[in-house]
């Protein structure tokens, strides 16, 4: 009896051990190494908090975090606003037999290289690019507008990518929603707008928030898009981290900045988890 109970208890552990080992080896240990590195001086000295104090005392470093949060918030908001109606059309308006094809078309941008996609946007937004040619050709603008190498370009590049991601999570949530809820709301006299605002939207909030959180995490940690499209006219946190490594090889400061970035992501996760109980979604 006891041995049967013990083996019953051991089995779940045996099943999760590979995952735990993987997490320990490829997340916990590297994270500890990075945390340790962030507490050492660049010149090989002993324990120091100077890498963290530099971030809080240097307005240019602090500004990188502000820029990152602003860009990430704007990208997340725009992506949600664009993805929701797109997902709704896919789930509700497109016939079931076409939904698979429509979804595949929706995620097509994922099939191309991230770097190539960013450079493609650079060509589209450039002074001699398609958009500026259309604007000047149609007479709307006499001179080309600066679109490339701006924060706007970074946001466009991000939104193009993350709308697809959010569409998938919201679409999945909409498909799981039983039609009975809407029928019940209609039976109780609610119109389409009221049904959407008071029934459908609240029930699809977990899908929105999961997608929004993924967008937040991937966007705030991305180096390539702002580097290619932003023209370095302002620095975001990942660029600031990379800058410490290039010539000076200041891994302790880069580690400290990475941990601060990670702390912000953790706070965002805790906020989302508390509000929407993501773990039960």
């Amino acid at each position, binding site marked *: 009896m006891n041995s049967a109970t013990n083996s019953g208890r051991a089995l779940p552990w045996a099943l999760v051990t590979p995952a735990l080992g993987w997490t320990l080896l490829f997340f916990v240990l590297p994270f500890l190494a990075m945390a340790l590195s962030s507490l050492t001086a*660049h*010149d090989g000295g002993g324990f120091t908090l100077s890498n963290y104090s530099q971030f809080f005392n*240097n*307005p*240019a*470093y602090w*500004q*990188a975090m502000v*820029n990152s949060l602003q860009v990430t918030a704007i990208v997340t908001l725009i992506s949600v606003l664009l993805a929701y109606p797109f997902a709704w059309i896919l789930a509700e308006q497109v016939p079931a037999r076409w939904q698979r094809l429509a979804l595949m078309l929706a995620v097509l941008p994922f099939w191309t290289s991230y770097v190539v996609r960013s450079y493609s946007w*650079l060509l589209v937004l*450039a*002074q*001699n690019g398609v958009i500026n040619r259309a604007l000047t050709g149609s007479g709307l603008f006499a001179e080309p507008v*600066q679109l*490339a*190498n701006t924060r706007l370009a970074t946001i466009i590049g991000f939104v193009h990518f993350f709308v697809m991601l959010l569409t998938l999570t919201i679409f999945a949530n909409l498909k799981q929603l039983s039609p009975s809820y809407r029928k019940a709301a209609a039976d109780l006299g609610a119109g389409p707008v009221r049904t959407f605002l008071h029934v459908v939207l609240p029930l699809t909030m977990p899908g929105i928030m999961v997608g929004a959180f993924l967008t937040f995490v991937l966007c705030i940690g991305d180096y390539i898009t702002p*580097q*290619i499209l932003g*023209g*370095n*006219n*302002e*620095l975001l946190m990942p660029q*600031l981290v990379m*800058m410490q*490594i*290039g*010539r*000076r*090889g*200041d*891994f302790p400061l880069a580690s400290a900045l990475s941990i601060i970035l990670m702390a912000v992501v953790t706070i965002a996760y805790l906020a989302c988890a508390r509000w929407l109980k993501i773990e039960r979604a």
Partner: protein
Amino acid sequence: MSINLKATNPTTKNPLSVLKSRFHAACAATALLLATGSLAQAADLNALIWCDHADPALLQPFEEANGVKVNVKEFEGTGAGLAIVEQSQPGDWDVMVIDSIDVPRGVEKSLFEPLPEDKLPLADLFPQVKMDSSTVVDGKRYAITEKFGYNTIGYNKTKVDPADMQSMAALTSDKYKGKIAIYDYYLPVIGMAALAIGKKTAELTEADLPAIKEELLKMKANAKLVGEVTASQTALATGEVDILVGGGEWVTAGLAKENPALDFSIPKEGAVLWSQSLAMFKDSKNKDMALKFIQYIMSPEGQARLSTSACYWGMPANTKAALTDEQKKILRFDEQPDFLARAQPYPAPNADLDKKMQDVWTEMLQAQ
């Protein structure tokens, strides 16, 4: 789908013995492959390089002549390169391309092997680019300059007045507002800002940084973008901008055939001289081949191929480089004595000043 083992081996062997024998055969084959691989690895030359050394037109003649495979790994920035070395086993790497001013950083970490001066064409090098203050430490030569050029003003001569490009004042004038890109590397551009305010790059101190920052902010106010190599090169080539601060032959020469309008000037204030060197690792397991590689790169043929590499062009350090007349014209080879006389060395700050310079650069990037 099932596999009929008996059908494949219709003798007396049972499936298990067939699997065992195949397993043994596979082990033997793997061992053979590993042995061959390790032998090949021992004969290979492993090089930590910048992108210009990855050009097959440069490597293939050496590989064919010596029956060796050159394995290359590209990196950007000395810090990143040294980090790769620190994360490798001693002996993993044979040679390294490094900023000439950073050679002492490698020597300090006991990474490099002294080079035999009598086996290198030192006498053929442009004297100003030998950089002995960096490449020779305690009387021993640890690296040799292989390529150089200028961080100066690159421009499109059909879009700007070439006469304006003879002064750095053009970079901060309203005339070219929004027509400028800045190369995103703090040392050379800080060097240019120093030249613009009349400072010597070799004598920069912390006290100079406020004035340098002010000059950088003026340049930034005129700039459309601050871009790394590819971005700044693309911006100039596509007409997004007409002037590249920090540009030079490394941007314009390689594009000369497609876009002959691109050119560079050495303004009256001077230019910043960049140079890259080649060093051999102390723990190299293949020092003879490493030396042969360095000798090849420094030979007239190797120098011509390196200086016209597909990644970026630059001046060969060896005056006897076997360049064609057209290539020499594009590189403005004959004007080098004048250019070198007016160029100033790359800023070589100590660790503390280096950090402060990078912080000034960060503040410039964040300025709106």
